[in-house]
């Protein structure tokens, strides 16, 4: 099963390599990963999506918690949560019909065209990973030139807060 694990950790050199190293060292897989400082510049928030049964995910959270740089760990998929991923996708748009098709599909998915040349559209799309996948699938007749995705970010719904 797919899990989204959020990690609050010290914003220090080497901290990220410890987290990433742990996954390879213990043979855990990483589907996506993103990390950035929080409102408190001494802390970073890292989100990792991984696939594994309950036992593996339990080990992942326990092993992450053991890292000295890690302050808190939560498996967001255990409760209600919101997940988002940002994608920017560069598409060939050198004919009227292609440009129409991209525009229409982007509208359906509530994407935005954020850059355009006579030959190219770059679309920005935000949503769950599934939605981003669906957008790519929907663009059947269009040539995809480049895709960049941020990896999943997640936050729990309601009152629950992951902080110090």
């Amino acid at each position: 099963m797919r899990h989204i694990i959020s990690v609050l950790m010290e914003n220090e050199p080497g901290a990220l390599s410890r987290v990433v190293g742990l996954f390879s060292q213990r043979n855990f897989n990483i589907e996506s990963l993103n990390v950035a400082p929080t409102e408190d510049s001494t802390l970073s928030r890292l989100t990792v999506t991984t696939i594994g049964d309950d036992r593996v995910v339990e080990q992942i959270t326990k092993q992450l918690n053991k890292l000295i740089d890690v302050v808190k760990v939560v498996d967001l998929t255990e409760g209600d949560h919101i997940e988002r991923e940002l994608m920017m996708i560069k598409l060939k748009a050198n004919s009227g019909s292609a440009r129409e098709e991209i525009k229409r599909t982007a509208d359906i998915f509530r994407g935005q065209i954020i850059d355009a040349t006579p030959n190219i559209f770059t679309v920005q799309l935000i949503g769950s990973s599934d939605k981003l996948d669906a957008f790519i699938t929907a663009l059947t007749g269009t040539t995809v030139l480049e895709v960049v995705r941020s990896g999943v970010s997640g936050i729990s719904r309601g009152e629950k807060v992951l902080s110090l």
Partner: protein
Amino acid sequence: MVIRALRDEGVKYIYGYPGGALLHVYDAIFQQDDVQHILVRHEQAATHMADAYARATGKAGVALVTSGPGATNAVTGIATAYMDSIPMVVITGQVMSFLIGEDAFQETDMIGISRPIVKHSFSVQHPEEIPATIKKAFHIAQTGRPGPVVVDIPKDMTTPTERYEYEYPKSVKLRSYNPVNRGHSGQIKKAVDLLLSARRPVIYSGGGIIMGDAHEELTELAQALNYPVTNTLMGLGGYPGMDRQFIGMLGMHGSYEANMAMHHSDVILAVGARFDDRVTNAVDKFCPTSKIIHVDIDPASISKTVSVDIPIVGPAKEVLKEMIQLVKSAKEQPDAEANKLWWEQIDEWRARHGGRYRTDDSELMKPQQVIETLCDVTNGDAFVCSDVGQHQMFAAQYYKFNKPKRWINSGGLGTMGFGLPAAMGVKLNFPDADVACVTGEGSIQMNIQELSTCSQYDMPVKILCLNNQSLGMVRQWQDMNYESRHSQSYMRSLPDFVKLVESYGHVGMKVDKFSDLEAAMKEAFALKDRLVFMDIAVDPFEHVYPMQVPRGSMRDMWLTKTERT
């Protein structure tokens, strides 16, 4: 600042080897007497000495090595300590901070290289950080589940002409590191209820009892309940080895009665042990009828390989104390009749195989006899520092450890070459104690250069080299699984060990006959101020038994070359 901080931490000895990146630090060592430096002959030995000091005392040992090859030579020693959860602080020199990343002379990314084998590591960014960083390193190494910590210090952080305010912190607080200091009372209550209702209980304890200083509590609890106790390789000495309730080591080379009792038990109390693959054999066949209580300081050790019924996260000492209280005040006590039957069964197993080996099939001395003689001569009270291989298993099986922290061996990593430096580290800190290094002609040659360090610092350890002229454990596996094709497992051109040690100024003895052994060993231990190397010829064909059958359950064992359960 580095040496001052070590002094303020109460460090008496550091073990190391100088080099370019550490010259400022070595100059500071020269100018003081509080912290004494032991110059080894290879950095691996420095880490093993520090490690063995920690194993014998519970306090973190300190190794000091230079950048590049000095640091990489220390890696095996760091990994050894990591696998056995041993507190250690390893200070590594680093090239000047402005050269980092430029492939400078003797530069290596030690933080990166050591990352998977340390509890934590620090890279010093400013000289002012040194005292607090060293304090943190000791704190992290020694608390919770202990482990090695690396402190990497670029050369320009120790420039003596630059002066900074020095203050050694009295305590440390880390917001992201708060080891638990007691177990969950509700879980402990549940565990005690289960324990008291057991009809075929076993207490299975590991290194956590030793490092967690919980041997007294373990002994008290086991004796209050009259339950059998088995120890892991790392846990030997956690319960008195000569006591009736001790049923031996468990696992791959565990005793017949310990493995049988585990397999047939209904309740297992595991304390400070981690259900390692060398203990459990095939996990899907592990103790099918048992309910398991697992006490460990590290939550990640619980249900890692074997699912447990009652997990308790906490220090062994505190949890066992609470358990003792509950057992004493409990209205219901264990069923006496069931307990009696269980002991009858265990005693029957013990009588059937326990501690037997064949002495009749050859004229050659058996390695087991050597260990039994050592145990007799030292009365079970010596520090036994072992290398890795058959001799290690024989020592674990046949030396009856009555006290904790006396059995010093590389259990998790299985590092050949560990024994001699370990014995040195212990002897230096316990000059009046008997310290034996049990080794083989293979292992000893992995760090034999340290005989020179022993001369320099007068470390009169006793080295018992069980010489079977082959890598015995490898050979055993080749006998059992590869139709005795002895690929690369025998040693030609062994040195004349007696002459070799004499050239270092030590005493060498060669023993070929069992009838000479005891007298020779007594003589060796009577030479209090000399290092004695006993080159003991043992049967090269001997195997370690019992040996669990691969992928079997706990009770599936070879008992001799021809007999299995």
